[in-house]
């Protein structure tokens, strides 16, 4: 499969071989460098990252050891035209996601119109009954979305999944750019690269725009983290610092008379907008998991009273559900009146008996995912799976088909990547970050490119040994 992949630099796999125009300068530059050059630059990059302190804890390893996410020093390039297309598609998709969430937590017209099966919503544990009919400030639910996009040809992009809970990775997008600018000033001189460093400003503007309508003064924003043992804690502290807002843990917040306050050295300060990086389940032990020590008791009462904005809103997890994902083309059409600009990967819903028998018969060709899984956990890549893994998934699928979807094994595009053997093609995806405010939808050009460093591997998740690249949207 990997042999047939579209290479974003040399165009192979697309029928027209030869270096593609956006990569001409980069390709020539790569050829000019002496072999030891990349090794030197890579160790410099690693040094930069260690100094900055970027680490990432991987769940499921014996020790909760922190390690660097591998960073690849060769940038991934997108043309302005490619990006404009993606940008239009992303804005449309996220607008539809917001409208969908507003509807299922409100009048539920899309269920009545048969756009999505009622069961898929009502039986979903991420459909939070607690926020049904509760007015949400400015009707925005997904303030920060990470939409994972894969490419299979020069003009063929697919949305692989929507991350509308607490998508992470944006700190890598920002740090990768900073490190690249230090390592390769000469390359930036040869390319007009659209900036990404305004992301924190865009995020802050977004968060401030969604403060409750009743807040008359400058809204106070805080970032709520589960704490330093969370795998994304580095990102939380990084972002709070860049935004210039307080980084708080649950114990720093309290609720009185349905208002949220943070303890500060100057006494309690009212908080209006909370960029929370903890899941719904842990948010409020009085309403969700009673054993949660990461949450703020009473925060749901303040939320119900409209006194605080939670970003993202409670209950957005339903749109991360991979079974709900399969209805996105219909959801986009229903809420925007337009066809989806960004296509979905064709997906079999294993809850449907015919789809299930097809999936079971073709398991070794397909990718199977849990509807509520994320981070590449609980996933089967058929062509790379052992007999034992295939048998195990056959059993799981038969036992609990509604828990799974299946997709063809897409031949993700490749980009030149520096590996032990030199510069070689590796499969990539792209996670742009889409910010929805009361005023507008903001997207910084590009996003986080994730790369599967193992030859032939299609799993780009950092928890599964993936790395990242800087993503350049070329302005000229």
């Amino acid at each position: 499969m990997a042999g047939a992949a579209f290479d974003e630099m040399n165009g192979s796999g697309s029928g027209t071989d030869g270096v593609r125009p956006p990569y001409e300068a980069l390709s020539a530059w790569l050829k000019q460098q002496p072999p030891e050059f990349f090794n030197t630059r890579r160790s410099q990059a690693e040094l930069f990252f260690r100094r900055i302190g970027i680490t990432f804890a991987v769940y499921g390893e014996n020790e909760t050891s922190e390690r660097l996410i591998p960073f690849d020093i060769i940038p991934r390039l997108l043309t302005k035209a490619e990006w404009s297309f993606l940008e239009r598609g992303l804005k449309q998709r996220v607008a539809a996601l917001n409208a969908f969430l507003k509807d299922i937590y409100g009048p539920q017209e899309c269920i009545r119109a048969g756009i999505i099966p009622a069961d898929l919503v009502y039986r979903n544990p991420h459909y939070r009954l607690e926020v049904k009919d509760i007015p949400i400030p400015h009707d925005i639910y997904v303030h920060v979305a990470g939409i994972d996009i894969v490419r299979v040809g020069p003009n063929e992009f697919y949305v692989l999944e929507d991350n509308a809970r607490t998508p992470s990775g944006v700190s890598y997008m920002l740090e990768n750019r900073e490190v690249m600018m230090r390592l390769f000033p000469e390359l930036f001189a040869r390319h007009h690269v659209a900036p990404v460093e305004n992301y924190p400003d865009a995020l802050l503007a977004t968060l401030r725009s969604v403060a409750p309508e009743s807040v008359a003064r400058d809204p106070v924003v805080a970032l709520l983290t589960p704490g330093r043992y969370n795998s994304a804690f580095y990102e939380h502290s990084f972002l709070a610092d860049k935004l210039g807002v307080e980084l708080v843990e649950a114990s720093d917040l309290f609720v009185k008379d349905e208002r949220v306050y943070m303890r500060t050295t100057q006494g309690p300060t009212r908080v209006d907008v909370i960029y929370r990086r903890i899941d719904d389940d842990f948010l409020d032990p009085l309403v969700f998991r009673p054993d949660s020590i990461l949450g703020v008791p009473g925060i749901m009462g303040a939320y119900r009273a409209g006194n605080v904005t939670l970003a993202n809103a409670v209950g957005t997890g339903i749109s991360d559900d991979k079974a709900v994902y399969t209805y996105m083309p219909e959801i986009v059409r229903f809420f925007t009146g337009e066809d989806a600009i960004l296509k979905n990967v064709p997906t079999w819903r294993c809850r449907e008996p015919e789809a299930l028998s097809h999936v079971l018969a073709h398991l070794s060709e397909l990718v199977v995912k849990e509807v509520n899984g994320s981070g590449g956990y609980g996933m089967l890549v058929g062509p790379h799976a052992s007999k034992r893994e295939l048998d195990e998934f056959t059993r799981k699928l038969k036992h609990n088909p509604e828990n799974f979807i299946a997709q063809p094994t897409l031949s993700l595009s490749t980009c030149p990547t520096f590996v032990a053997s030199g510069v070689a093609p590796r499969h990539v995806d792209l996670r742009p970050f889409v910010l929805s405010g009361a005023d507008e939808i903001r997207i910084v050009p590009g996003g986080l490119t994730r790369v599967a460093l193992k030859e032939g591997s299609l799993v780009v998740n950092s928890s599964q040994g993936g790395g990242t690249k800087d993503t350049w949207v070329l302005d000229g």
Partner: protein
Amino acid sequence: MRIRISHQTRYIYESPARSVLQILRLTPRDSESQHILWWRLEPSVEGRLKPFEDAFGNLCHDFAPDHPVEDFTIAVIGDVETHDTAGMVRGTVERVPDPVFLRETPLTAADDAIRTFASEHGRHADRDPLGALHAVMSAIHRTIAFDTDPTDAATTATQAFSLGRGVCQDLTHIFIACARHLGIPARYVSGYFHRADGVADQEAGHAWAEAKVPHLGWIGFDPANSISTTEAHVRVAIGLDYLGAAPIRGSRRGGGGEKLDVRLRVDTARRQVQTQS
């Protein structure tokens, strides 16, 4: 039947607790089987008591004492006129569509043992769901011994089932797990039960389940007593499981150890002189 309920939950902490916050689901609503004649909810300390309705239509209160507290009581008292509706639940506030009650929750998830048990005792569920549910209820009643020792509020259906013991909450969770496995929406009810043997003082409130039977509607099943609900049952709150219907969920800062003292009296009202002022 006219039932008088007096239910006091007293919290005693080692030292004053700050930021006490509670959600109380202690206020019953009218339905065809019960009419609330009068009802009072009274915390023993000054505080903010704010009523709201939750997603399931339960009447709830947020309660927050004004000051740190070391010893306080949440008391409810009232009279309810009940009628036997042969287990049929009608005239209730229904806010949530039926498929929600097919969701598994951590407390009501079934394992292979419960699924096998449910399939065996409820094998005719598609032809005769009512009969199947009754069979499952009496099988649970026979199989699970009533025992207050080994389980607590966090015990799951699977844990209680493998222990073979538990209290009304555990039996109800097991029943719900079975019903949902059979494809029948089921929910948890917290409330009160008037005992026929004349014993009015009780250790704790009661819990049972309701299942949505095609063509009949919601039916009450009380696996602890192995009966459908009768005029002895006073229904207070519903949820997917205990957590959604819990009479009191709370949090606090400080206070050290906690001692809980529950006084519950469920009696026929005519025996007493009404003391409402």
